[in-house]
């Protein structure tokens, strides 16, 4: 889907000092963010961090209390209709017409975008094909699976060929196939010049998309950069140990911290440090339940910056593991309790002691 380049030097999206309050609650505080043509930005943050508010502001559904927003140089506050022509929004909540067919859903949004007759059919096909909807066009949306409905929902945001695409948790609750299709399609769109703002609870998706990252925490952007930059500047590596009972006090040449019942040894080369850590356990080794080698990655960046883990996604299915994900979990115990944070290797002590 080719897009016209933005006027020279104008980013696809620019937020400067944007603040939004709901009564006495501050949803966004002095947020500045830029997205260039063809760039994918993974917008990360816990529930309530302000991701959806940010997208609603950009789409002109909300008005900021302070600050400036520009979509390719156009303010969605002062000229909402012109700004909306440039952007496509797929909100977090599924927004489709269940009694109608996929074709009717897509045709409606194509018609709203000003297309008629043959152009509607062509554009509908153009959007349906990469999302795997071609064979479903004449099926009622109510009869599709959740993942298929999510693809229809996303396709509806693309019919007017937006230059800026806002995807708010597009893979929440979807199957592996849908997740893979969506990720591949987002990469295609970005390669053709579309700027994409992609909020997600799955860090592996951000890594698979090779997206740059903006981390929101309590309404503020606390980190912004490429994945490599953030990992280099904020990514911690560590050895983490779980014990039955209270963790013991260890004497090691590296910083040791207790975090929510987990003993965390921050060390630059965690694999080399494991024998030293195990030796230092002494009698406490009997109570060791689990040992994890944590490599620097987005998860550790997030933990370092916010003090909280990011793996509590909206469902327990976990992200589709893409070949580009830098680390895979090695749950030797095979507990099957959902995803292990990217960048970690886990060993159950009882089976390896």
């Amino acid at each position, binding site marked *: 889907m080719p897009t016209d380049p933005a006027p020279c030097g104008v980013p696809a999206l620019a937020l400067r000092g944007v603040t939004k309050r709901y009564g006495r609650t501050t949803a966004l505080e002095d947020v500045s963010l830029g997205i260039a043509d063809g760039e994918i930005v993974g917008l990360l943050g816990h529930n309530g961090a302000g991701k959806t508010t940010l997208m*609603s502001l950009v*789409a*002109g*559904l*909300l008005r900021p209390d302070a600050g400036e927003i520009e979509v390719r140089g156009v303010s969605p506050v002062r000229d909402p*209709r012109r700004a*909306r*022509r440039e*952007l496509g*929004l797929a*909100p977090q*909540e*599924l*927004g*489709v*017409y*269940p*009694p*109608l067919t996929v074709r*009717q859903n897509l045709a*409606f*949004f194509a*018609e*709203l*975008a*000003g297309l*008629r007759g043959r152009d509607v059919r062509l554009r509908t096909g153009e959007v349906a094909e990469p999302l795997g909807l071609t064979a479903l066009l004449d099926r009622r949306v109510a009869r599709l699976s959740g993942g298929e409905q999510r693809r229809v929902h996303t396709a*509806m*945001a693309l019919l*007017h060929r937006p230059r800026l695409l806002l995807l708010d948790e597009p893979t929440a609750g979807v199957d592996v196939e849908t997740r893979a299709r969506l990720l591949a399609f987002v990469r295609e769109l970005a390669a053709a010049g579309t700027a994409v703002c992609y909020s997600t609870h799955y860090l592996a998706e951000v890594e698979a998309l090779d997206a740059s990252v903006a981390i929101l925490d309590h309404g503020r952007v606390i980190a912004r950069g490429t994945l490599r930059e953030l990992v280099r500047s904020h990514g911690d590596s560590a050895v983490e140990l779980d014990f039955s009972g209270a963790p013991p006090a260890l004497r090691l040449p590296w910083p040791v911290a207790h975090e929510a019942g987990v003993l965390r040894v921050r060390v630059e080369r965690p694999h080399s440090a494991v024998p030293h850590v195990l030796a230092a356990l002494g009698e406490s080794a009997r109570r060791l339940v689990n040992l994890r080698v944590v490599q620097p990655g987005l998860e550790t960046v997030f933990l370092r910056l916010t003090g909280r883990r990011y793996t509590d996604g909206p469902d327990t299915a976990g992200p589709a593991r893409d070949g580009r994900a830098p680390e895979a979990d090695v749950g030797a115990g095979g507990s099957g309790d959902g995803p292990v944070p990217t960048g970690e290797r886990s060993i159950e002590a009882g089976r390896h002691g």
Partner: protein
Amino acid sequence: MGDGALGRIAALVRQDGRLLVRDPSPLIVRTVMPLLLMSFMQPLFRAALRADDVRGATGAEQGVPGMAVMFLFFLVNIVGFAMFREHGWHTWDRLRAGPARPFELVAGRLVVPLVVAVVQLAVVFAAGGLLFGLRVTGSYAALVLVGVPLALCVVMVGMALVALCRTIAQLSVFANLLALLFAGLGGALTPRSALPDWARPLAPGVPSYWAMRGFSAVILDGGGVGAVLLPAGVLCAFAAGLTAVTLFFFRAEHRKLSWS
């Protein structure tokens, strides 16, 4: 209204049409219900009209327009549901984030209910003639002149309630209450001459009164277009007032709670 606004309104109208075609049963039932009730009430209406010295009355002269007007106002629910379901399906914010202005989103939702209301009136009157012996002694054009602004009133009552109500439960309750109130005060349930004393001074304050007055002028008195200009004009004024209420209170960004 340039820059493609008409095209977008047409797209919204087509979408409403598709949704209506997908499930027309509520409208079919609402069209059959007045005829069903009429079959029970005709003897009562006949007696009331004959007591009013209407010679040769079959009861259809009061019953058909009365039931038509009463059940037309039950369409207010349909108008409201069409707007609230956009919130229930989470499509309202998608529409707001699209190219259509809020005015277009509302305007596009008027046309199909308006057509439905006019068709419902026409079907009830036609069936009244075939099944219950309704004879229109006046001008059919005059009937249309009353029926179209009445249908517009019904649609705009629905839109005004959408603007004023936060939940679909509120809308449903108020729509049903208004339908019964309008039917009672307007003379749709009984001839206007049989209204209780307390109701008579209030009757001109509801659109159904003017609709019944216009229909009676055509059906019973053999009136033409000139005879219904006042009722039709008052109905237009009601529609304009309801439009003003809608424009004043409607906020596209207001969240509405649907059934879900």
